[in-house]
């Protein structure tokens, strides 16, 4: 008969603090915490002394003061009497706008370049390799400055669009009467919404949903009855017809404000500044090269056996790509794609190098210099980018977990 007893507990000795694994980890953590506290107090002490010596304190009151400077690209109304806070909001909006647009175009460039790089056509695949290698190995700042300098120097000055005094034709006219490329930016028509203009937009959004509904209908028809239904032309019809009908029925509520040449400069229309165009294009084409590599790696990662098995079952190459290769490749492509999107957002802070007023330019640039509130401004600036990055990363983790391939 055995009696189960607890193993005898060793009595605690001081040297166990270092040697026994359980206590050792406590000791280390205690030391680490202590060191951290000591370092932070030294830094904090220095900070307080330096601030006192300069006669400053930490406060965010300056955000309520009038900014006193103009912002050239304004998605929402702003003038120099508005507060620094509003200037920062304008800057943040500019950051998000250029980042969003650059993500879209970079994806387009990247997918096209990545897929073409895998093609059998030797000339095309070598050209795409050239594109990828040249753009990846040169800093984005240099590309940004080159593109900005080119657009600012190659496009015509506004003077050439002006009507000469003697009544003859100007040197240049608007393209199709709606667009002008100048060295100060691109002038495009602006959409002006009348009373029922929003309804047209809603109709368009509804027709996008309609296209998805059509695809689902076609798929169910195939599954249930084995009949294929043409999808492409009806989808185009659904996208275009209702919106156009709505537009006319409501009496053309959406107007277009065309840029027109006034006495000295363009009036009306929307001006996309050179700095904005340069930043957008540079970010797209630079990040597009990295995305191309991700797409290529994703497609190559799917073993050849998958497409062979699908071909042996009788599927044609279009179906093989859609049903077998792409679903698997997307799992590999999307995580690095998202981190490229985050890179675009962070790289958009280079706007300050070409004068585009994003958040780094307003809050981290003019506001910081004018108010002298360096610590507060930089902290707020970093907080914005950090929040954005962490949110997108968290969303990506959720997405990753939901599509993970199930294994034993």
């Amino acid at each position, binding site marked *: 008969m055995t009696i189960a007893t607890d193993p005898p507990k060793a009595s605690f000795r001081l040297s166990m603090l270092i040697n026994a694994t359980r206590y050792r*980890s406590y000791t280390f953590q205690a030391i680490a915490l202590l060191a951290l506290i000591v370092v932070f107090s030294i830094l904090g002490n220095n900070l307080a002394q330096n601030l006192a010596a300069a006669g400053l304190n930490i406060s965010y009151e300056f955000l309520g003061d009038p900014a006193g400077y103009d912002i050239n690209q304004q998605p929402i109304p702003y003038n120099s009497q508005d507060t620094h806070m509003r200037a920062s909001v304008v800057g943040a909006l500019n950051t998000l706008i250029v980042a969003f647009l650059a993500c879209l175009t970079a994806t387009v460039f990247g997918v096209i370049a990545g897929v*073409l790089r895998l093609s059998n056509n030797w000339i095309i695949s070598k050209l795409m390799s050239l594109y990828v290698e040249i753009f990846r190995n040169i800093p984005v700042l240099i590309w940004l*400055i080159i593109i900005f300098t080119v657009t600012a120097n190659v496009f015509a000055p506004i003077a050439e669009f002006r009507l000469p005094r003697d009544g003859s034709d100007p040197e240049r006219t608007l393209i199709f009467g709606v667009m002008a490329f100048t060295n100060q930016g691109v002038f495009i028509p602006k959409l002006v919404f009348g009373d029922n203009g929003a309804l047209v937009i809603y109709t368009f959004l509804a027709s996008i949903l309609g296209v998805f509904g059509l695809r689902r209908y076609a798929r169910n028809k195939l599954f249930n009855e084995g009949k294929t239904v043409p999808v492409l032309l009806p989808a185009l019809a659904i996208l275009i017809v209702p919106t156009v009908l709505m537009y006319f029925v409501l009496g053309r509520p959406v107007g277009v404000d065309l840029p027109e040449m006034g006495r000295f400069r363009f009036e009306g229309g929307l001006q996309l500044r050179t700095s904005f165009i340069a930043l957008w294009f540079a970010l797209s084409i630079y990040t597009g090269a990295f995305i191309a590599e991700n797409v290529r790696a994703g497609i190559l990662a799917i073993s050849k056996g998958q497409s062979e098995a699908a071909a042996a079952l009788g599927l044609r190459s279009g179906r093989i790509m859609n049903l077998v290769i792409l679903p698997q490749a997307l799992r590999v492509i999307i995580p690095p794609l998202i981190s490229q999107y985050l890179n675009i957002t962070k790289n958009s802070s280079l706007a300050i190098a070409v004068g585009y007023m994003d958040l780094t330019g307003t809050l981290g640039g003019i506001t910081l210099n004018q108010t002298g509130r360096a610590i507060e401004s930089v902290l707020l*600036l970093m907080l914005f980018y950090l929040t954005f990055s962490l949110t997108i990363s968290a969303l990506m983790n959720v997405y990753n977990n939901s599509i993970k391939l199930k294994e034993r």
Partner: protein
Amino acid sequence: MSDTHAQTVAFVRHTEIPPAPPPAGQAGAVKWMRENLFSGPFNTVMTLLGVYIIYSLIVGIFPWIANSVWGVDNIRACREVTQGNGGACFAVIEQRWQQLLFGFEYPSTEYWRPTTAFVLLFVAVAPVLFLNLPRALLIFTGIYPFLAYWLIWGGIILIPITAALGFIVGYFAFKRLEHNSFAIGLFGAVAAAVLTWWLTDFLIQPATRGVLFGTDPDGMLRGLLYQPEVASRNMGGFMLNMILGTVCVSLSLPIGIALALGRQSHMPIIKWICVIFIEFIRGVPLITLLFVANVVLAYFFPPETTIDLILRVIIMITMFSSAYIAEVIRGGLAALPRGQYEAADSLGLDYAQATRLIIMPQALKISIPGSVNVAVGLFKDTTLVSVISMFDLVGMIRGPILSSTDWAGVYWELWAFAAALFFVVCYGISQYSQWLERKLQTGHR
């Protein structure tokens, strides 16, 4: 006897069929072109488009280079020579290449020093990159940081010697003490190094310098014991990018390794410190960290101390780089099979020994491609210091050169030169990384 068909049974081949060449039209250039370039309407269109693009590029660039102008003094003279023919004005590079490479204010008599340091960089780095070179070269790699510092910044040679001495004493102390435990070894090494530096501090004070060298430091002992000092704010040009790149990447490697190990640790406090640091740094753009270096960091140093801008920038860029390296190494640690950890434990190795002898060597090998990517990205990012008014290559071009009256308006040539410099370095590094990856893959078979 089974009912197999008479014609299919019992065949034996006695003579081998020799290999024959493939039929013409089934192989060779024509077939290749037919299959690869013109295999369908879409492909044919793409090929023609591609050829057109290549043609326009060549037609656009070649005359520009062929008509290039050298040997003139300013852009107006350039324009006279080309007479509107659209030639490149490479004279600007001929005139200003020293500024582009070394910065505005680095004394031109001393250009041989950073150049020597650059050449020696290859010698120092070679045994790390190419594993079949003799290991004795690593001694030079260890000396190189001190030598390069002395060459580029100047000063009396005792400064780098005493610094190196501290490290050497610390290393020997570590070797003696690590048998007791890794932690004691580490603390002992640090204590010994600090002690050495404190003891030898008097050697580098100006008073001692007067005693040792008399009143003529530029005299006979120059060159061997003393180089004229160059202040950090006089560094510039491409040299600045190279210095920032190499220093920050080298410093961030050990820090990144420590962060990666810390993030993997089971101790919650250590783990959370590392996680917060890494996620914070990775979430913000480098420019904001450079703003910190420029205007904020000074507040955290003791009052009345002034730290060089270049040192502050090095600190922030190193922090930035170590966070990204930490993530790469964390991936390498995760890719290591669980069995390695278990084997190390079963042999009785403690954490420090297992990590140092078994886990880290393998994890580092796996992380090399990713780390090289981070290094290349960081090197490109060093151009951002031009935004905080430091005169690296980009800062030089935008600043002194393009705003000078001689050369205002010459932009293609300068930016092409800058782009070419970066391309050569970055492409070279990434080719090395691909070569290394191929070599390591065959090693893993």
